[in-house]
């Protein structure tokens, strides 16, 4: 990297490098570590070696993957293995002096929702969690990435990780998207353009007027899905929006330390002369609400488009992959995406379960009814999002329309808690992965924005939400 200018990634990396080896490996310090109910194995490793959590004050936990969304009662978990997972995070946290937001705490929720919400994720930090969607926290100007179970135990014991510095890719998006085109549509467009492996080995910095104009919630949605383009981390430089979002949050710095922190955060954005390893530019004015039709997040198209025809694809491997995906999805080539009927609608997940997401969905649902053929549910990202939504009356709008109003958790994004889509059922989902079997064996997942999910719920089929917003 040129000495003349440094990227946001360079600046955060350099501040956290403890040891740099000639072979490219760096011992990197971790500022914030989130644990959840999938972290059981990592604590077992710690126990086997007689090690303690090095920095319990830097570690925060919450159960999210296995928690029931029908109630906050542990007894609602039928599966004893799943109950053990949920209990383990509270038990392990207590044994090591780690703060945990348990099922009985209104601050419980999806780790990637509550980190920003509590002010635990801040600009310039290194943030890790044993979950690939940790890239979400990069929206605050942090270097945030998912790790595996062995790495979780390594962070618990040493507060560090051995890492090779990723390459830097800048994705610049300019222009004001049309009403009804949201952050989710922006990131689905990005992934469709660069591909599911388009950013392997890279950290993405999202830049440009479109990103600057997004709220933190929108930026969280964009950074969340960086991993679906292969990037372990996605980030947005801190600005006035970031600072305004963090001010006054429970774990944000206060008083003189706040001033000191803001001064540092202001110095983090990439220098004007900084060079990136690769650059991509997109125009947001031409973007439309997106729907995925296949079994990879890269398989996205505008709602005005059609299911692709494999016979028109020159690359034979790609042709075979598309055929296989359409077969699994039960779709006929050339079918208009608008009008494809759905059975299930899921509004939730670390991608789209924040208050703005729920407001947008409620705006579409308001005064309408969920189609008789559809079962729809809304799962807030945290207990506090749920509380806020209820204070605004969103729960009443959803329930009047026929949506189920649930408790916070990962829920149907991955179905570990039993919230599953049945084999062969088609689901409009605001989550992040349409992989084969992701929402349940044989489940057919289409990724959409909260507005598009609500539109599918009330019309019974994929519909261009822009028509409903105008009406």
């Amino acid at each position: 990297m040129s000495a003349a200018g440094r990227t946001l990634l360079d600046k955060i990396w350099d501040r956290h490098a403890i040891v740099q080896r000639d072979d490219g490996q760096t011992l990197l310090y971790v500022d914030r570590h989130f644990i959840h109910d999938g972290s059981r194995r990592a604590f077992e490793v710690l126990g086997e070696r007689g090690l303690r959590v090095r920095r319990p004050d830097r570690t925060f936990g919450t159960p999210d993957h296995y928690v029931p969304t029908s109630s906050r009662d542990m007894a609602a978990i039928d599966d004893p293995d799943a109950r053990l997972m949920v209990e383990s995070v509270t038990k392990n946290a207590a044994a090591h002096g780690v703060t945990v937001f348990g099922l009985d705490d209104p601050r419980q929720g999806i780790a990637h929702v509550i980190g920003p919400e509590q002010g635990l994720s801040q600009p310039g930090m290194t943030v890790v969690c044993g979950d690939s969607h940790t890239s979400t926290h990069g929206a605050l100007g942090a270097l945030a990435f998912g790790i595996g179970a062995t790495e979780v135990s390594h962070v618990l014991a040493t507060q560090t990780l051995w890492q090779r510095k990723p390459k830097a890719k800048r994705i610049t998006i300019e222009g004001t998207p049309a009403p009804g085109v949201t952050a989710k549509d922006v990131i689905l467009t990005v992934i469709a353009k660069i591909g599911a492996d388009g950013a392997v080995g890279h950290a993405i910095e999202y830049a440009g007027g479109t990103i600057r104009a997004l709220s933190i919630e929108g930026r969280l949605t964009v950074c969340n899905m960086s991993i679906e383009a292969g990037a372990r981390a996605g980030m947005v430089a801190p600005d006035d929006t970031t600072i305004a979002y963090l001010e006054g949050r429970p774990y944000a710095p206060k008083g003189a330390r706040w001033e000191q922190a803001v001064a540092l955060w202001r110095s983090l954005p990439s220098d004007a002369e900084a060079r990136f390893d690769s650059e991509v530019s997109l125009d947001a004015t031409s973007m439309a609400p997106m729907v995925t039709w296949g079994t990879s997040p890269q398989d996205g198209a505008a709602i005005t488009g059609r299911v692709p025809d494999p016979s028109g694809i020159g690359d034979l491997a790609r042709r075979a992959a598309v055929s296989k995906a359409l077969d699994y999805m039960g779709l006929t080539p050339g079918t208009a995406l608008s009008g494809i009927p759905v059975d299930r609608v899921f509004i939730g997940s670390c991608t789209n379960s924040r208050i703005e997401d729920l407001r947008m969905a409620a705006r579409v649902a308001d005064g309408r009814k969920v189609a008789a053929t559809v079962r729809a549910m809304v799962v807030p990202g945290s207990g506090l999002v749920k509380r806020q939504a209820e204070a605004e009356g969103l729960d009443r709008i959803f329930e009047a329309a026929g949506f189920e109003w649930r408790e916070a958790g990962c829920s149907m994004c991955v179905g570990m808690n039993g919230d599953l889509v049945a084999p062969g059922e088609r689901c409009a989902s605001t989550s992040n992965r349409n992989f084969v079997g992701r929402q349940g064996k044989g489940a057919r997942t289409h990724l959409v924005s909260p507005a598009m999910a609500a539109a599918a719920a009330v019309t019974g089929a994929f519909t261009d939400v822009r028509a409903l917003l105008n009406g």
Partner: protein
Amino acid sequence: MEPFARLDAVAVPMATANVDTDQIIPARFLRKPRKAGYGQYLFHDLRFDDAGNERPDFVLNQASYRGARVLIADRNFGCGSSREHAVYALWDYGFRAAIAPSYGDIFYGNCLKNGFLPIVLPVDDAAALCDQVRQRPGARVVVDLELQQVIAPDDRLLGFAIDGFRKHCLLAGIDELDFTLRHRADIESFERDQGNATPWL
């Protein structure tokens, strides 16, 4: 961690791009204890039908590929979820190395932490190797980490790169946690400096 030994083993071709870790091991098996063994869950829904019978068309179920220890994959193998169980499943089934043009970044790291070698080869070399083992089911490849080379069934030598530290840990079976704990003084010194510079953290 088990030291990585030179392999001379049957290789399985899997010429599909973007094989995600949800395919390698579906989410419903992740709650099982590590000790229970994960080999039976590897590629579970591709390998078995709804009645639990083997799908004869799936590559691992074909007689020539039984006992394979090397998986030859396409680009972005192991993308998606960070679940380390994907590596446990490969390992418990008997695989010790993969060869692909690229991997999901988190999966790649998880492999190295478990004694499993993820080899990166140029797209054309990986594709040619995949074709060879597809055309000659049961063909063997040699994986030599010490020399950083793969010997294809047609005896072609294919070199690969790996960070020295990673190679050393794999060959010696060194768990990096033990190694890092020796850097305790460096970590403590870093924390003191950080505490002075950014006291709000």
